């Protein structure tokens, strides 16, 4: 069961902490909003991903299990 990152674009207010904490998977566009690589996370990045999700001030960054994803 793999885990992926996903951003809730409605909640996101472009604080940018996620990109600082997980540059391997998240970069910021020219307006400061995150571009998230939604591929499954390798084990080495899981802790960093969790930390990035917890750091988001608006809870916009979500760590999902494949089973949870909406179609």
């Amino acid at each position: 069961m793999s885990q992926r990152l996903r951003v809730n674009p409605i909640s996101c207010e472009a604080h940018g902490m996620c990109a600082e904490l997980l540059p391997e998977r998240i970069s910021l566009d020219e307006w400061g909003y995150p571009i998230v690589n939604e591929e499954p996370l390798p084990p080495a990045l899981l802790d960093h991903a969790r930390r990035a999700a917890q750091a988001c001030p608006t809870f916009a960054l979500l760590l999902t299990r494949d089973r949870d994803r909406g179609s």
Partner: protein
Amino acid sequence: MTPILATGPSLYWYLTRSTGAVALLLLTAAVVLGVVDVRRWSTPNWPRFMVDALHRKVALLAMIFLALHIITSVLDTFAPISPIDAVVPFAGSYRPFWLGLGAIAFDLLIAVTITSLLRQRMGYASWRAVHWLTYASWPIALLHGFGTGSDVRTTWLLALSIACLLAVLAAVAVRVADGWPQTLGCRGAALGGAGAFSLFLLLWLPSGPLGSEWARRSGTPSSLLGHSATAGGSHGSRR
């Protein structure tokens, strides 16, 4: 040390004053950092997540010193302050109004702290609404300090308090300016409130805490007043 302890002010008296001053300083820093955080300021050496973490940790540290300030004020045997007075305002016998302001500020900050620790479990909008109570708690805490503090006439504490006030005013101005003129009603009210508060201090301080017989006028029980002719000198003439 023992002879001094037997006849001079207790250790708790010094601790409650010092922790109170430090708490004010840390709360000021927390407010300033909060505005820096929401304004998304950062540099390569001070990334966003660090500014945010600093804001949270300074705020927690402020709460620790606030707790010490309250505990030591209860333990100090000079002024009759009970644990209840820390959270229930205006019920005590020592400067009830001014102490009560401290209780109110503490209550607000408890709400802010608990919601922040549990923010994963509550909605973002509710968390944010409660968090704005910090803007109310700070001026109340400052007034509490001016009203209850016996050191307010000392240069260092007065200067510290004014510096903290200026820092918070600057932070509020920066916060209000961001996104001006949206939600003009709220922003206008915030600026107006800050201005009115400052004006009030300017007019009240000289005749209030910095004026004569403040200890009596602020509600110090008369049994504690007889030891000094003037209200709260700079070297603790309370005894």
